[in-house]
């Protein structure tokens, strides 16, 4: 009796092993052929079938295209909306409704059948979709999670760097205004700029800002950098230097 149970429980896994093997071989062949061509290796897993099985990929891609179009001031075509909507709802239906239904239908047929080794196509179709879906999710999650944290750091670095540029521009305009007004009016020690006297200056935790050079009331160079070394490494513009030339029409400009 115990031998029969063990035999049944081991046989239960054979169809799954066949499906996993078939999916694995197909994916392996697909990988082999795509990497032998000019197709980028990083996209080998991103084929149409996976795009349907992973519906959120389609929506994410549509959202990014929409953001890029908005950045350039153009509208996203309605065809793209309908295509993405169609593909993602199809994916949801296949993965969460149809495939489980087919799998259980297959099991019902197996249980009704006297011959347990009989091939039930509906079970294999449902199991194949589920294996592709689960392996795709696991693969994509393992690939995306480390990237996700890295992206967050890069975005924070870019934001901090943008903030620094904006502050530097505030200071440059303030300094320029101070130098223009002080050259004509009696402002005490006319022309000599100290950062503390500029209206937009305050102590910033994130930034180190200093005056690099001042040549009379004609040239002032100020420089700012990020204090956080990790953000500075990730940022493209970790040091911003601006030159203020109140006697020239250029008035202010970035040195770097």
């Amino acid at each position, binding site marked *: 009796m115990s031998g029969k149970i063990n035999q049944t429980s081991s046989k239960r896994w054979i169809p799954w092993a066949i499906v996993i093997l078939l999916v694995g071989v197909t994916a392996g062949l697909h990988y082999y052929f795509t990497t032998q061509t000019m197709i980028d290796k990083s996209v080998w897993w991103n084929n149409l079938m996976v795009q349907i099985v992973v519906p959120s990929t389609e929506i994410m891609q549509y959202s990014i295209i929409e953001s890029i179009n908005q950045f350039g001031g153009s509208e996203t075509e309605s065809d793209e909306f309908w295509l993405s909507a169609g593909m993602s709802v199809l994916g949801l239906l296949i993965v*969460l409704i149809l495939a489980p239904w087919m799998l259980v239908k297959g099991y*019902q047929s197996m249980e009704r059948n006297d011959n347990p080794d009989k091939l039930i196509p509906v079970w294999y179709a449902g199991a194949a979709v589920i294996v592709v879906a689960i392996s795709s999710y696991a693969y994509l999650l393992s690939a995306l999670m480390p990237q996700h944290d890295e992206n967050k750091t890069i975005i924070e670095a870019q934001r901090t760097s943008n903030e620094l540029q904006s502050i530097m521009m505030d200071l440059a305009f303030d300094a320029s205004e101070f130098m223009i007004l002080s050259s004509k009016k009696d402002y005490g020690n006319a022309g000599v700029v100290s950062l503390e006297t500029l209206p937009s200056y305050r102590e910033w935790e994130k930034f180190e800002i200093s005056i690099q050079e001042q040549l009379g009331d004609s040239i002032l160079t100020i420089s700012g950098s990020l204090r956080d070394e990790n953000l500075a490494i990730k940022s493209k513009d970790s040091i911003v230097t601006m030159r203020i030339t109140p006697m020239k029409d250029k008035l202010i400009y970035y040195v770097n």
Partner: protein
Amino acid sequence: MKNHYFLIGGVFAVLAAFSVSILFDNLWIGFSLAFGVAVLWLGLFDRKMVNRLRDAGNRTIVRVVLILLTGLMLGLSIVHYQRAIQQDETLTNIRTTIIHSISRMEMEKPLLLALRHYHSLPSEEQTSLADAFQNLYDERLNTDGSWMPETPDDDDDMQFTYSIASPDSVVLAVTTTFTRGEDPEFLNNNNQTGLYQARAVLTERGVRYEREN
């Protein structure tokens, strides 16, 4: 046959939930609702079909597979959603930073140059700041109240205007046509909402740049 009706019911329920995305013009809303409906359907499916499988082992396998499937899909969808939001915020931030810098150079700089010009005049020639500004930028002031930027805006995003509030005050203003500002409800001068808007005010005390949205 009953099982087929149950399947068709699930398909229509998911389709109906997803169609909400058309109302809101947002695929993530439809996707979230459709996913929720599909999970509810899977709960009913468990009671109606999985529970009736004779083999307890098969029941366990199906349940483990369904939990893995919905759990991993949910996790991946959250990561994809966060990535889409990150991209949108990054692009919006870059665009706003660019527009903010350009508008300051196009408005604050000429006003400071007008201030410098005003102070460079001998006192007998100093009439008013507005006159100094108009003399210096006559060719950039259009009769319809628009201000011609030094560098043409190829994207047609930035609309500059000028106004002489008083002899001692000049205002340059900018409203964008698609660059978003901070408050999505903000009513812009061009009757659009939520867009970047700023103004620079010149007085004898200097130039004040105010970002309005």
